[in-house]
């Protein structure tokens, strides 16, 4: 591997070096840790959700009014 910052001899070589876009050697352009964090977060939410337990709510209706008819 060559050193990118080694001194250049000629003017065209210097210009070419300046024009060259520096390569990003980080994982996912430096967003690696963020992506890993998001994946872990999604896994946490899917596999071990933190939600309130379901509860059964029973609402009593009005008492039935029955009419008894005498035969």
């Amino acid at each position, binding site marked *: 591997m060559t050193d990118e910052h080694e001194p250049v001899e000629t003017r065209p070589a210097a210009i070419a070096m300046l024009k060259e876009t520096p390569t990003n050697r980080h994982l996912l352009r430096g967003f690696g840790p963020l992506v890993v964090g998001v994946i872990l*977060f999604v896994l*946490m*939410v899917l596999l*071990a*959700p*933190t*939600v*309130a*337990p379901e509860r059964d709510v029973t609402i009593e209706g009005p008492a039935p009014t029955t009419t008894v008819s005498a035969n």
Partner: protein
Amino acid sequence: MADVAVVARRTFDDRRARLVAGAVLAYSLLYWVPGSPFPERMPWGVVTQGVIFGTTNALLAMGLILTYRTTRIVNFAYGAMGAMPGSLTVGLFLAKGWNYWLAILVGLIVGVVSGALVEILVIRRFTRSSRLVLTVATIGLAQILGAIALVITLVLGSDLLTGNIDTPIDFSVFVRPYPVRGDHLLMIGVAPFVLFGLGWFLLRTNAGMAVRAAAENTERALLLGVPVRRLQTIVWALAGGLSTLTFVVKAPFTGVVPEALVGATAILPALAIAVIARFQSLPTALGAGIALGLVEWTARWNTSAASFFDVTYLVVILAALLLRRERVSRAETGESSWDSAGVLKPIPDELRSLPEVRRLRLVFVGLAGLLVLVIPLRSQGSTVVLMSFAVVWGIVAMSLVVLTGWGGNISLGQFGIVGVGAMAAGNLMMRWNVDFFVALVFAMLVGGGVAVLIGLPALRIRGLYLAVTTLAFAVALDSYFLNPVNFSRYVPDSVRRPVLWKRFDMASEWVTFFVCLSGLALATIAMRSVRRSRAGRVMIATRDNDRAADAAAVATTRVKLQTFVLSGCLAGMAGALYVLVLKGAGQGTFHPNMSIEVFSFAVIGGLGTVAGALTGVFFFRFVDYALGEYFSGDVAAILRLSLTGGGLLGVLYFLPGGLWQFVQRQRDRYLRAVAARRGILVPSLVADKRVDEASDDDHPDDETALIRGALTSDSP
């Protein structure tokens, strides 16, 4: 007569005066047109009330403008400066049976004297401080004056001093639908008198001219022989008198309630007017005051939601700031920052790895960890809830460290953003049973979004306007958005705590506490990383010298906004945790005064570091709890205000880095001893110390020996 003709001609020539006259004429003519909405929607009585109360708010705004034009700060103590002598006036009249006019005269004299004393005892002490520090000092001052006002009401019989007050002005005329009393006329009669008086003082007198010169460039005015200090005393005395006058003419309608005495919130309408007038023009302030008064009373007459007007103040302030073009006068440039004397230094590299230093750090960290873990486990559930609240307040304080300590801006409505986060997370959890962590992240995003909305108009121009917009936001959120009358469907009044990872039921106070604590720990780690990154360095650079940062191609406005967004995210996170601990939120949960309290606590602890702000908040939450145990009602309020207000002023003057600076001084003393014992030269421990002219006697022995040792070892 000739003078009257000249004044009349000049008034007619003035564009604004013609506009007002045209509006009055149009209203009067249209009122009588058949089918006109005015008799129903905007009757004469509503217009009259709007003009009258708008005029009083304009009076308050004029006082704010007056102090701004002399010291270039927004004086948050302005309301309290009048409330203290004003409550004395009302107390003397009602409780002691004094003659009304004599009581007003005494109140005015006390107001003028206290205004002068405030300048001599407090403001003058901060002559060399930055404007940010002086603005914060006025917040402390407001609390102390509020405490004195409460003492006065207590001594004179506080039961008498609430609600409407009957004065001896025996006059009343009915203007449909409201009666206009003599007190109303007194209010409206005072405003033009004050306007002309102030205008004459500033424009026509030598003292007024000198005051304006000193406000433009203090050093130059001093060189030209202007007695700047004496003039400032005069202006603050005038402001004290004016504030008292406003309070006294308003008191027959508003009474003397604690809200009006203490909170910076009481001056919100005046702040809105002053922002419209750009803290510059007194006539514009009068016009804006009347216009806002008209809008307020018309809205009150036509809608049932009176609190709607708090939102209008926010909108008016934001719009006025957005429409404002940056025209910086010489006096506005060089906006200064948080006092650099308060910057706290890390342990020097030379000593960090020494065993005695590492051991001491371990001991302290271990002790703190042990306390945090052991105390909750040995406490009752009700105490643990209080600790959870303290931890959440700690996160809010951390958001202030980012904003004020690193960014050099003030937010007086941080709990407003906390409230938005709480609403967002609370609704998600309550209505859709969304995962707590998703709700937490959503609350952070919402907090950041709100920060953009209320931060952008204020941060694009120089000056500490963020304090004004955030205060307006906090008031609007509490009184309108969290009001169940307006948004009954969106107020998360009952949130069930979830089960953490399907294992730990957060119905247990201990589990909730440790979740909050983990949130605080994560936020601390994240903020430390931010501070050490380029983003953190840019924030500090913008705070310290935004012109130099500008010159170094830093987009300073964007950086300021980023700082506020980061701070808003933290506040949103605190909101999600808050709603979890409280199991709901509603009106009063995020009272605007809480924002001012947390700001004061954090400054006293030390806004330069996370540890300092946390220490301040935890200490004062504990003091608050202890005060609540032993005192109640007004006495507790007086003690609390005196402690925070006095603490704020004391810390700003003696320890600009907060109480944590004291801790660090002891640490540095220990480090110097270690360095001396090991014969290590640590320049950062000795070089930055202020050297008094007295001589070497002021240096501790170890320090002097160190310097001597360094000199001899360097010499050939």
